[in-house]
C-alpha cells in the first residue's frame, strides 16, 4: 500500500477516465498516501481521484463517512464539501462511503496529547499535530466518537470541495476557451461570462483529463452561503416520512431473521441449553450454539424472539462480583490507595497545607445503559469468497477485521455498508452484535441473515457507563474557595472497552479523570485531582461524554458545596476561579441569558449552575427547579457553550437541547444494578430517562471564541446533572451526592 502503488493506480485511472467520462476531485493525494476507496468499486463510466467527491455524467456524489447516529453529521459533512464545491445539498447524493484508511479520523489526536484542551499556543498545537500525525501513520482508524467529527473534517472536506471546483473550472476553460479567471461557479455548474452554464456532470469527462488542482485558498466565513446558517438536515424529510432505512429495516432477497440470547452474566459461557420446544414453533428454522449463548433463525423477527424466549438455558456465573453492593465496596476500598493510583492528573499548590475551612463529601455515579431506541442489529451475507455487512457502526474498518476473523474470508473481501443508526450514545462502538451476526451467517453460508436483538437482550447485554465514586475536600476562607482536592475512583472503561478489541490499554485510563483534571480553575491556588482505577468489575463502555459525565458531576458539585459553604455566589465564584477566557465568556453568557444577577426566584424555587469542559468545549448549564408538593419540578434551563465555529445553528441547538435532556433524564432516574451477576433492568420501564411531560423549556446560546472548531455531540451532557443537583440544593437545602437523584427526592 505504498506510495508507488498509489501513483501507479492513479496513472491507470487518469488513462481510464478518458474512456469512462467521469471524474472525482480533491487534494488528498498531496497530504495522504492512502488509496482512494472509491477506486474499489468503480463502475464503467465512472472514475475517482479522491475520497470525497465523485462526479459522473448522471450525478454528483459526496462521500461523508462519519457514522450518523442522530447528530446530523452526514448533513454537516455534505455541507462542508458543498460550500466550496458550489453545489446545493438537494443536487447531490450522499454516501457513507467504502471504509478505508483514507478516511482515518484526524480529529482524535488532540485529546491524546496529554495537554488540557483549553491550552492553546503554537508549541501545544505542534505537539498535537505530532500526535495526530503519528496516529495517522501507525493506526489510521476510521472512527466516529469523542465528538471529533468536526475537528476531523472541517478543513479537509472544504478542501475537497474547493479543489474539485477549481478542477472543474479548468475543464470548463478547456471546453469553452474562456480563461479560468473569467469563470464562476454556482449550483453545480460553471458559469461563463455570457451567462451560459456548463453543468458539473456534463464536464465530468473533460475534467477527468486535466490534472486536478491541489491547492486552493478556502473561503472566508464571511463569504459562506451554507455554513454558519441553518440549512436543514438532509436526513430530515426521510426521517419524518418513515422512508429512511435504518439497519433494522434492511431487507434483501432470501434474508432470514435471527435473534440471540447470550449469557446475561456478561462474558461467561453457557453451560447447556434445551431448544426442543422452541424448535417446534412456527417459522423456526434452526437453533444453535454461538459464543456464550444461542442463536435462533426464523422467517420473522417476532417468531425468532418468541422461540428464543422458549429455550431453557443454564448459564455460568461471571468473573465480576455478583451483587451491586460488592461493586461499590470495591471502589470504596480502592479510592486513595497507592496500588490503585491511575494518575496524579492535576497538582497545583498544596491542598494539604492550603488555608481554609474544610468541606468534605463523597459522591457516586452509577452504571447507566445506552439503550438507544433502535435495538442492536446487523445483516450479514457470507458468500463463497466475499462477505457483505449491512449495519450501522462507529468503527467501520474494525468491523471488517473482526468479521474477516470469524468468517475466515480475507479482509479485503469483507465489505461493510454502513447505514443510518437509530441512536447510539456509544452503543455502536461495540462489536458483539456484529460478531454474532457473523457467526450465524457463517453457519448459513449463502443466506443473508439479519440479527435483531430484543429490547431485553439489548439491555441485558449492554456494557453500561462505568461506575465511579468521588471523594472531595474543598476549603474556603474569607468568602472564597481556596482549595479543591478531589479523588476519583472508577472502573476502567477504556481498559474494558479496548479489551474487546483485543487491545491492552497501554497507559493510564484518562477517562477516570477527564472533566475533573481539565476543569480549568486557573485562578485557584490549590487544586489536586487524582484518579484511581479498578479493573475487575462488570464490563463497561463509553457512554456519551464517557468520563466527563461522572467526573464533572463530582468536581462541580464539590465546588458548588464549597462555594455555598463560603457564602459566595455560585456564578460569580466560578467566574472568579475559572481563569480561562473563553470559559469565562460562556459563564457570563449563561448568567446574562437567565438574568442570574438580580433575578429573584420565588419560595421553594432555586437555581443551580454547573460548568463542564469536555472534548475541548466549555458548557455552562443553569437549571431552575421548584419544590412542589408533588415533588421537584424542572422549570427552565439555560445552556451556553463555545464550539469555535458553528456549522449549523439550528442543528447545534438541537444537540444542546438533546444532550441536556439526556444528562438530566439519566441523572433523575436511571441506573443499572447487578443482582446475582445479571443487570436488573431490562426495558424502559426500569430505565426510563426523561419523558416529554418532565422536559422544561431549554434556551441555548452558542459562542465562537475558541481557536479551533470543536464537536458538540457529547459536551452538553456533563454539566446537566450537577446543574440539576445544585438547583435542588438551592431550592430545598438538600444536597444530592449520588445519581440517580430519584432515590433521594421525588420528581413531578
Amino acid at each position, binding site marked *: 500500500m505504498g506510495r508507488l502503488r498509489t501513483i501507479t493506480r492513479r496513472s491507470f485511472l487518469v488513462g481510464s477516465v478518458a474512456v469512462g467520462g467521469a471524474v472525482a476531485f480533491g487534494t488528498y493525494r498531496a497530504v495522504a498516501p492512502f488509496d482512494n476507496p472509491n477506486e474499489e468499486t468503480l463502475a464503467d463510466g465512472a472514475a475517482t481521484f479522491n475520497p470525497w467527491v465523485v462526479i459522473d455524467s448522471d450525478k454528483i456524489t459526496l462521500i461523508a463517512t462519519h457514522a450518523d447516529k442522530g*447528530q446530523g453529521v452526514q448533513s454537516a459533512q455534505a455541507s462542508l464539501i458543498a460550500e466550496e464545491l458550489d453545489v446545493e445539498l438537494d443536487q447531490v447524493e450522499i454516501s457513507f462511503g467504502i471504509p478505508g484508511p483514507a478516511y482515518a479520523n484526524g480529529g482524535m489526536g488532540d485529546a491524546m496529547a496529554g495537554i488540557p484542551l483549553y491550552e492553546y499556543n503554537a508549541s501545544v498545537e505542534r505537539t498535537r499535530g505530532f500526535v495526530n500525525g503519528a496516529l495517522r501513520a501507525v493506526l489510521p482508524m476510521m472512527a466516529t466518537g469523542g465528538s471529533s467529527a468536526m475537528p476531523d473534517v472541517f478543513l479537509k472536506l472544504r478542501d475537497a470541495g474547493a479543489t474539485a471546483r477549481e478542477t472543474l473550472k479548468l475543464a470548463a476553460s478547456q471546453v469553452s476557451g474562456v480563461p479560468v479567471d473569467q469563470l464562476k461557479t454556482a449550483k453545480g455548474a460553471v458559469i461563463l461570462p455570457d451567462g451560459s452554464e456548463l453543468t458539473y456532470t456534463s464536464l465530468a469527462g473533460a475534467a477527468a483529463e486535466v490534472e486536478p488542482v491541489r491547492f486552493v485558498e478556502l473561503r472566508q466565513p464571511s463569504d459562506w452561503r451554507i455554513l454558519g446558517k441553518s440549512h436543514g438536515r438532509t436526513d430530515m424529510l426521510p426521517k419524518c416520512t*418513515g422512508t429512511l432505512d435504518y439497519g*433494522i429495516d434492511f431487507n434483501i432477497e432470501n434474508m432470514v431473521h435471527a435473534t440471540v440470547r447470550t449469557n446475561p452474566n456478561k462474558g461467561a459461557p453457557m453451560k447447556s441449553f434445551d431448544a426442543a420446544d422452541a424448535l417446534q414453533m412456527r417459522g423456526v428454522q434452526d437453533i444453535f450454539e454461538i459464543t456464550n449463548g444461542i442463536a435462533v433463525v426464523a422467517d*420473522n423477527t417476532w417468531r425468532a424472539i418468541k422461540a428464543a424466549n422458549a429455550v431453557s438455558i443454564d448459564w455460568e456465573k461471571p468473573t465480576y462480583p455478583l451483587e451491586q453492593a460488592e461493586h461499590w465496596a470495591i471502589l470504596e476500598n480502592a479510592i486513595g490507595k497507592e496500588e490503585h493510583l491511575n494518575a496524579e492528573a492535576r497538582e497545583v499548590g498544596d491542598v494539604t497545607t492550603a488555608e481554609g475551612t474544610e468541606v468534605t463529601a463523597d459522591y457516586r455515579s452509577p452504571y447507566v445503559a445506552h*439503550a438507544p431506541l433502535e435495538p442492536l442489529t446487523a445483516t450479514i451475507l457470507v458468500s463463497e469468497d466475499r462477505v457483505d455487512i449491512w449495519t450501522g457502526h462507529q468503527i467501520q474498518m474494525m468491523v471488517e477485521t473482526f468479521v474477516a476473523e470469524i468468517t475466515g474470508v480475507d479482509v479485503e473481501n469483507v465489505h461493510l455498508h454502513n447505514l443510518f443508526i437509530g441512536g447510539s450514545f456509544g452503543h455502536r462502538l461495540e462489536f458483539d452484535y456484529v460478531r454474532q451476526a457473523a457467526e450465524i451467517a457463517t453457519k448459513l453460508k449463502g443466506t443473508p441473515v439479519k440479527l435483531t436483538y430484543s429490547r431485553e437482550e439489548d439491555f441485558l447485554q449492554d456494557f453500561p457507563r462505568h461506575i465511579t465514586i468521588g471523594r472531595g475536600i474543598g476549603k474556603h476562607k474569607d468568602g472564597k474557595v481556596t482549595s479543591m482536592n478531589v479523588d476519583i475512583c472508577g472502573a476502567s472503561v477504556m481498559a474494558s472497552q479496548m479489551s474487546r478489541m483485543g487491545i491492552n490499554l497501554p497507559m493510564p485510563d484518562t477517562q477516570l479523570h477527564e472533566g475533573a483534571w481539565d476543569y480549568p480553575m486557573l485562578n485557584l491556588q490549590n487544586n489536586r485531582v487524582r484518579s484511581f482505577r479498578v479493573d475487575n468489575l462488570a464490563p463497561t463502555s463509553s457512554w456519551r461524554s464517557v468520563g466527563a459525565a461522572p467526573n464533572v458531576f463530582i468536581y462541580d458539585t464539590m465546588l458548588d458545596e464549597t462555594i455555598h459553604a463560603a457564602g459566595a455566589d455560585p456564578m460569580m465564584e466560578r467566574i472568579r476561579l475559572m481563569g480561562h477566557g473563553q470559559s469565562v465568556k460562556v459563564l457570563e453568557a449563561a448568567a446574562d441569558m437567565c438574568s442570574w444577577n438580580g433575578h429573584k426566584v420565588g419560595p421553594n424555587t432555586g437555581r443551580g449552575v454547573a460548568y463542564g469542559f469536555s472534548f475541548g468545549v466549555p458548557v455552562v448549564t443553569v437549571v431552575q427547579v421548584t419544590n412542589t408538593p408533588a415533588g421537584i419540578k424542572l422549570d427552565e434551563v439555560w445552556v451556553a457553550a463555545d464550539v469555535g465555529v458553528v456549522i449549523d445553528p439550528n442543528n447545534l441547538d438541537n444537540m444542546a*437541547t438533546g444532550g441536556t435532556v439526556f444528562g438530566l433524564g439519566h441523572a433523575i432516574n436511571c441506573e443499572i444494578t447487578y443482582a446475582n451477576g445479571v443487570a436488573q433492568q431490562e426495558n424502559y420501564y426500569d430505565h426510563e430517562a*426523561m419523558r*416529554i411531560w418532565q422536559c422544561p423549556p*431549554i434556551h441555548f446560546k452558542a459562542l465562537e471564541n475558541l481557536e479551533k472548531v470543536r464537536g458538540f455531540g457529547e459536551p452538553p451532557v456533563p454539566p446537566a446533572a450537577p446543574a440539576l443537583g445544585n438547583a435542588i440544593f438551592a431550592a430545598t437545602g438538600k444536597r444530592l451526592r449520588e445519581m440517580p437523584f430519584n432515590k433521594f427526592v421525588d420528581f413531578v
Partner: protein
Amino acid sequence: MKFTINGKAQEVDVEDDMPLLWVLRDELGLTGTKYGCGVAQCGACTVHMDGLAVRSCQVTAATAADSDIVTIEGLGTPDSLHAVQEAWVEHQVAQCGYCQSGQIMQAASLLDMNDAPSDEEIDVVMGGNLCRCGTYPRIRAAVHSAAAKIREA
C-alpha cells in the same frame, strides 16, 4: 387474515397472536413503523387503527383483522406531506429519528381530536412516546405549528 393498510387490501397468513407491528414490518415490508421496546413503553410502533392511535406491538393480528390501518407511509409521503410531517420538517425535530414515526402518528391522532392543544394536553398525549435523543421541546413546538396548519386548512 385481512386488513386494509394505507387504503390497500392486504392478506397475510400469520398466527393470531403475532403483533400487528411484525405483520407490518416483516410480513408486509412496511418498515416505517419501528420496534423499540415490544411492551408499549416507547411508542415507536404507533399506527392508526380505525382512526385511533395504537401501539402496534400490543395489537395482535387477530384483533387488527378487518380493521383499517394507517402507518407513517400512509399518513403522507415525501411529495405530499401531512400537516404534522410538514411541521416536523420545518422545526427540524428529528435527531436519530427512530422514534419520530411514532411521535408523528401520535401527534396526528391528537390533532384529529383536538386542533388546538395546550402544552399540558400535548404532554399528556405524547407522554408515552419516548425520545432518547431529547427532541421534546421541538415536538411540542411542531405540534402547535401543525395544529395551526390544520385549523387554517
